[in-house]
């Protein structure tokens, strides 16, 4: 089959690789119909996530049609399914508590050693996201092996398009959990750093959970415009001093909750971020947490900080004083996707959540490497890219009336 493979920093190729096969009784194989490129794929593209191996197949936002079924899978050939990016066994203590991304069994015994060394305990498995999370092939390919298929896959009823439901795989539940972790109360003002797909879903979710105001922060005009369409007030951080703006806009109180949808590769103008960038490029540091620091410093006393943004290593200058003295609460974590998919699918069916407005491009798998380049370099116009193995090379379809130019 054809698949998008990672070969190093800024080197993604289309390769011919073997087809996946059923390995365990609870597996299925799906034929991919849609697979999105995620913001967190850029951390892989930029070489920030350790334990990638040359030849790894990318892609963790996947859906498709069941084409092969293991002996103990309840799924049936022909069913359309969305696959959560988290691989979860469904029977360990953590899955029992619906902390699916903390699954204790889905990271194979050999690869789990690495995260145990790095983080103290082994991480759960995930598709297409380095060997730290198990080394599972991703779905930016024609076919995908899905383990524990009785736990993850969401069967999609007829009459709903791929575009409407694909994001159940990651970014929609991630935005939703980000808002849930912000413990929003009626009347709250919520500040959201980053208006990428997760930020946009966090904004929508915050309003659905009763936020009175949402203030969204970014520096890409198109992304800020999408946030505004959702009802958020917007801040362009190259135009305004964000902390002063948040102080003034909340009458000296500060946002009740702050959500960092940016993660380890923050842009930013502060001296701290310049130093972090230098350190990251000279291998003296890993994460560049400018947005995170700003969120903690901006949050009101006794407020909540929610961190769906991805971090991987160590951080300098964590404002622990502000965090402690203001009495903040922080919640974070990889998304417990399986906990939310049922509820969110119903909300999509009922028209309560708009999941398609951010999609800017559909492209073929063969155009994948170009698309990674655009996703990295043209974040203003490429707000969400969906790859469809069914499309012919060059058949790039633009939504939002944008024009595709080869990278």
């Amino acid at each position, binding site marked *: 089959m054809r698949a998008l493979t990672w070969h190093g920093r800024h080197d993604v190729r289309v390769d011919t690789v073997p087809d996946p*096969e059923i*390995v365990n009784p*609870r597996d299925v194989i799906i034929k991919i119909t849609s697979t999105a490129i995620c913001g967190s794929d850029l951390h892989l593209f930029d070489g920030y996530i350790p334990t990638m*191996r040359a030849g790894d197949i990318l892609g963790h936002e996947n859906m498709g049609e069941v084409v092969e079924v293991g002996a103990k899978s309840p799924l049936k050939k022909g069913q359309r399914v969305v696959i959560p990016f988290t691989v979860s066994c469904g029977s360990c203590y953590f899955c029992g508590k619906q902390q699916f991304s903390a699954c204790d069994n889905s990271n194979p015994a050999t690869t789990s*050693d690495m995260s145990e060394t790095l983080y103290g305990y082994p991480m759960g498995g995930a598709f297409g996201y380095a060997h730290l999370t198990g080394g599972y*092939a991703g779905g930016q390919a024609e076919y995908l092996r899905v383990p524990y298929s009785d736990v993850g896959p969401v069967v999609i009823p007829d009459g709903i398009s791929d575009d409407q439901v694909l994001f159940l795989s990651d970014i929609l539940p991630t935005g939703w959990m980000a808002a849930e972790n912000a413990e929003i109360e009626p009347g709250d003002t919520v500040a959201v750093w980053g208006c990428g797909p997760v930020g946009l879903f966090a904004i929508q979710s915050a309003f659905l959970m009763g936020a009175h105001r949402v203030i969204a922060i970014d520096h890409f005009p198109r992304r800020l415009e999408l946030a505004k369409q959702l009802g958020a007030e917007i801040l362009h951080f190259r135009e305004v001093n964000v902390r002063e703006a948040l102080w003034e806009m909340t009458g000296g109180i500060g946002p009740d909750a702050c959500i960092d949808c940016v993660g380890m590769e923050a842009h930013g103008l502060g001296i701290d971020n310049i130093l972090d960038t230098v350190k990251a490029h000279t291998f003296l540091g890993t994460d560049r947490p400018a947005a995170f620091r700003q969120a903690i410093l901006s949050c009101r006393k006794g407020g909540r900080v929610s961190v769906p943004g991805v971090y991987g290593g160590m951080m300098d200058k964590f404002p622990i004083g502000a965090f402690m003295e203001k009495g903040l609460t922080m919640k974070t974590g990889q998304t417990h996707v399986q906990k939310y998919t049922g509820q969110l699918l119903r909300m999509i069916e009922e028209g309560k959540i708009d999941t398609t407005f951010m999609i800017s491009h559909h492209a073929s798998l063969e155009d994948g490497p170009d698309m990674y380049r655009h996703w990295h370099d043209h974040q203003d116009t490429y707000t969400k890219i969906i790859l469809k193995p069914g499309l012919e090379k060059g058949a790039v379809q633009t939504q939002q009336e944008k024009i595709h130019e080869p990278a």
Partner: protein
Amino acid sequence: MAGFLLSGDNQGRDGDTLQRTLIGAAAVAAAAGVALYVGRKLSGAPEGPLLSDAPASTLRGGRKPDPALVGRTVTINRSAQELYDFWRNFENLTQFMDNVRSVETLDGGRSHWTIAGPAGTEVKFVSRITEDQPGRVIAWESEEGADVRNTGRIEFIDAAPGRGTMVRATITYDPPAGAIGRAVAKVLQREPNVQARRDLRRFKQLMETGEVTSSASPSGRRSEDPTKQYL
């Protein structure tokens, strides 16, 4: 030396620089010495009877009874009896013990083990049960003449109500060539510590999910088989 450097007016700039450098070096050396001393003081093993409630395998170097003592605990969402029953049937162990080629049950609580050692070697021994408490403990030791003398003990300990069972493996072994053998085996990932950790993880997977987790999948690496687990 310092007196020589400090005396006279004709040292000039170079003298000052050298002097500052030396004072700096002395300060660094002194700080390192203090750090080393404090570190030793703080990490030094206390004397007297052990106070900690933790298993012996977690003891620091100075207090560990045997450097070849390996211990590892895993919590499994199943009853102690169920886990014991599975384990007690030693032939089952090949389902999750990666390096155990075969186990053959003999008479009198004895069994014959064939284990993959480092670099394609095979280790064979006969093991004899020394303690057997159904639902609680299985312990064994290798009989005379084993290539690698070893003892083992598996305890099945009830976790908090509703939280399954803690399975604790404690293994001692006498590797060929002692410490060097251990180091070589560690590099080759056949070291009992690594092996015990991974075997218990696979045991948990098998007991909780019914299968040993595998991320076997295709990749652009031509030499790899998409049905096999690598790394």
